């Protein structure tokens, strides 16, 4: 057996319980890693931006992203401060309905 990570789905169940309905929401996931959690909720959201400073993890995420999510998920190799500065420079600045600190605080 390959390593199984949270096969019970406890993490996504807890996220859906606390975050509620993702429908129509613009989501920022900070520390999106290889996309393990992202793929589990992104199909319900309007748009998702995942930021991850580790280029190797991000490359895995790009490789493993389900085709059905490519329209609504954007993955970036970026840290939080760089990303925030970029969003602030937009006119108007981009703001999110939901931010997820994914094992990254």
């Amino acid at each position, binding site marked *: *057996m390959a*390593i*199984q*990570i*949270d*096969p*019970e789905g*406890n*993490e996504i*169940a*807890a*996220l859906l*319980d*606390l*975050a509620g309905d993702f429908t129509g929401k613009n989501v*920022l996931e*900070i520390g999106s890693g290889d996309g393990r959690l992202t793929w589990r909720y992104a199909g319900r959201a309007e748009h998702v931006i995942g930021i991850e400073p580790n280029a190797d993890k991000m490359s895995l995420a790009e490789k493993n992203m389900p085709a059905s999510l490519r329209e609504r998920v954007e993955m970036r190799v970026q840290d*939080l*401060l760089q990303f*925030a500065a970029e*969003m*602030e420079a937009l006119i108007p600045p*981009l*703001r*999110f*309905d*939901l*931010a*997820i*600190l*994914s*094992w*990254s*605080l």
Partner: protein
Amino acid sequence: MVHALETVHGLLKPDGRLIDIHPSGEPPPFIVRSGERSEIAGWLEETDDFIEYRQAEAALTQAVSDRLFTVERRSTFLFNLYADTFAELSAYLEANWSDAVIPSDTAAHAKALQKTARGKTEVLLREQVWISRLRPEHR
């Protein structure tokens, strides 16, 4: 870490929400399962990551105290990694959790439990994880 929370605060809409997910900071146990029977073989040793998880908890407390966020809901869940053998699990941890330290007596105990068990066994690492929903406050 509090600075990171301030940055996230600035990225949220006024009615937005922050979900924070981080492990409890308690060393997770290695559990050997055989049928209905489960036995703890030992614990992953304290690493810098565990210290950071506790600092994350302190940063959240500080952010609430500073009235940056209000905690609306909070709960915990168990996050399990499963493998057929202890060797497989430790190889995975070595590759993916560079900070992980597995005490030699824990490794020996887990292997012994697998060797002496009747029937199929599996090994898991079980982390307790905090999840919180926070509402940004506007001072």
